[in-house]
């Protein structure tokens, strides 16, 4: 995929900015949203190849967003990132068939490798 697109959802501006600069630097198309609701609006408007979402956000949290995304876009890979990991939330994420669950703080390079590998698997699966 020449210019993959990613949607980053996080209520923390710092994380959104950091990931925006990083993915743009890698030649990706990137959109950012500060909430689950805003993310759903963006998904309805533009094609996204990977969704990267924070778990704990005010109003619609990452798991609720994931469930909704699963219903509307069943093949869209979802990667969860969280600063508050727990066995329960990781199990819920597994059951919701998320592609990955990444704990904060993370290295952006490691995150990139994981996101890229899920995108590749998705491409191979749809070929």
């Amino acid at each position: 995929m020449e210019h993959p697109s990613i949607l980053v959802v996080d209520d923390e501006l710092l994380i959104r900015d950091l990931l925006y600069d990083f993915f743009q630097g890698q030649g990706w198309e990137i959109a950012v949203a500060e909430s689950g609701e805003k993310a759903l609006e963006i998904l309805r408007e533009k094609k996204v190849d990977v969704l990267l979402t924070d778990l704990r956000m005010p109003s619609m949290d990452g798991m609720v967003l994931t469930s909704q995304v699963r219903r509307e876009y069943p093949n869209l890979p979802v990667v969860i990132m969280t600063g508050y990991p727990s066995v329960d939330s990781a199990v819920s994420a597994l059951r919701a068939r998320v592609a990955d669950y990444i704990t904060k703080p993370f290295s952006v390079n490691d995150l990139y490798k994981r996101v890229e590998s899920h995108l590749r698997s998705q491409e191979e699966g749809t070929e």
Partner: protein
Amino acid sequence: MTITKTSDGRVLVTDDEPGIREDLADYLSNLGYEVATAADAAGALDRLSQAEYDVLLLDDMLPDETGLDTLPRLLDLYPDLSVIMMTGYPTIKSVIAAMRRGACDFVVKPFELNELKTAVERAARRSRWHSGRTVTDSHRPEPTV
């Protein structure tokens, strides 16, 4: 392909504790599944080579190899198999490893039998969907546990 079958699916229970194996096998048989058991990873691989299964319940703490270490090899050989990891010692790392290695579910011991029932039903549906099979069975016995 549509197949007519006499059970709700085939489940392989792998756990080194005989009491757990037997209890789970009885419970799942009463729910209408065809159930086989194995006591370790080698036994599970042996069973899987002899018959087709929809769901594998795989304990992590096995005597010969951990369930998590066995998981990628199993799924390379049987990609349509739905694997439910079981452990009494869950960690965030182990759940993430199970996710990345392709498990479809993760249950923490001790668990409610109803939780297991839901997990197995979901896993069996997933397995049938992956293998492109449709099940046509109308006789589903009531659980008797």
